[in-house]
């Protein structure tokens, strides 16, 4: 009975509601944590998994040896590879397509690659305007690799001691 009276009186003073409101009022004046995207960006990890790239060795030879491990491991089956024997008897790809609309950016292809050829860059601001724009071919992937090679090499080197 005593408890009942106490609880009734307490709820009539709106004590708990006022405490909740004081909390939200405190937050009203607190520092805002919004990141205003195009001008400000969140820091990126060197392990960031963004747009794919195919790398070349410093002498210009492409790294990919068409072992097709990435194609096999890809859970979304986004990678298609065809290969041939080149004149110098090495095996190279004739076709290396990644369908970015299928890709789930898990990074398995990069993990499986024995020659660090296929990598995921930090690039995430890209888009396609027509159907098929996000189907990246070998030439496009090599182009990406050429463009960001410095950053890619730096990130791989930094992470190499943990792999």
């Amino acid at each position, binding site marked *: 009975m005593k408890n009942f009276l106490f609880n009734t009186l307490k709820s009539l003073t*709106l004590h708990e*509601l006022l405490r*909740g*409101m004081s*909390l*939200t*009022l405190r*937050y*009203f004046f*607190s*520092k*805002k*944590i*919004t990141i*205003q995207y195009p001008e400000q960006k969140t820091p990126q990890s060197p392990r960031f998994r963004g747009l794919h790239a195919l790398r070349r060795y410093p002498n210009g030879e492409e790294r990919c040896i068409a072992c097709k491990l990435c194609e096999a491991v890809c859970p979304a089956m986004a990678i298609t590879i065809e290969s041939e024997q080149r004149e110098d008897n090495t095996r190279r790809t004739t076709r290396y397509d990644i369908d970015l609309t299928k890709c789930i950016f898990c990074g398995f292809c990069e993990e499986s690659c024995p020659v660090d050829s296929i990598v995921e860059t930090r690039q995430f601001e890209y888009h396609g305007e027509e159907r098929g724009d996000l189907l990246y071919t070998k030439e496009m992937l090599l182009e990406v690799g050429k463009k960001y090679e410095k950053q890619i090499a730096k990130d791989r080197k930094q992470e190499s001691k943990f792999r």
Partner: protein
Amino acid sequence: MEEFLKQYLDPTFAITFAYLIKIFCIVIPVMISVAYLTYFERRVIGFMQSRIGPNRVGFFGLLQPIADALKLLFKEIILPEKSNNFLFFLAPLLSIAPALAAWAVIPFDFEMVLADINAGLLYVLAMTSIAVYGVIIAGWASNSKYAFLGSLRSAAQIVSYEIAMGFTLVGVLMCANSLNLGEIVMAQQGGISQWYCWPLFPLFIIYFISAVAETNRAPFDVAEGESEIVAGFHVEYSGMAFALFFLAEYANMILVSILAVIMFLGGWMSPFSFMPDGIFWLLAKVAFVLFFFLWFRATFPRYRYDQIMRLGWKVFIPLTLIWIVFVGAMMQTDYAEYFH
């Protein structure tokens, strides 16, 4: 203004025309404040959640409500195939019309009122009650189970809280001895100590909570309840028809706030005797009260439906009745002056 127009126009025309101008002078600022209330709602709730809120369209996002309105204007109005077309389009009109019509009797300043009628308070109550038809008809005409559930909920809720709200206003009537809104404000002359929110403090709180429930705002927004019944009564509406419901909700919010200010916070009266009275006091107080609406929405989770009914019928109605009896009894004692 009528005299001025009579020089140029036929007398009957002049009166009509003068009233039309006055109506525009009320409706357009109301519409603009509705638009900016939505903007401030998003900003205030954003701030309370450590966010910034809309700040891209125009300076500090000040053009955001205009962009939103334009977007809604250009959207297609979708008509559900098995709905009742006539009622489907009548419903938004039925909810916006009373929300705007009630403004006719609101006194903004001394003698600054469109229709100075004696039963102003009753008129306002009647108008806010009609608004429930818009919600019910919208829910029924949509021919959708979510819309129907939402409209049933809000009908029961609005009817229950209407009673508690009416009782709180009885307290004000007893103090002011008048149903005329202007006279109620004049009775609170003489600074902050004379406002009715002090002798009628419990009624003021109950009025305000009932007002939140009346306008279907959080934490009493079971009519919409987007996590339970999608969007409640306006789930089938789109484009301008949806915008009308939105307008009505916010116009009602401003209306109940202005009523709270008129009846409990001294309307256009200045809180300090050394400062002049004026419409700016009314606007400042209304903005203050409206902030509470946004503050509530940022703070409280939605009530469960049976808790809403319990609060309305078992708590508010008995409490208001007790306080009315208390005020009536006090008026027979030596302390009567504190209650006038």
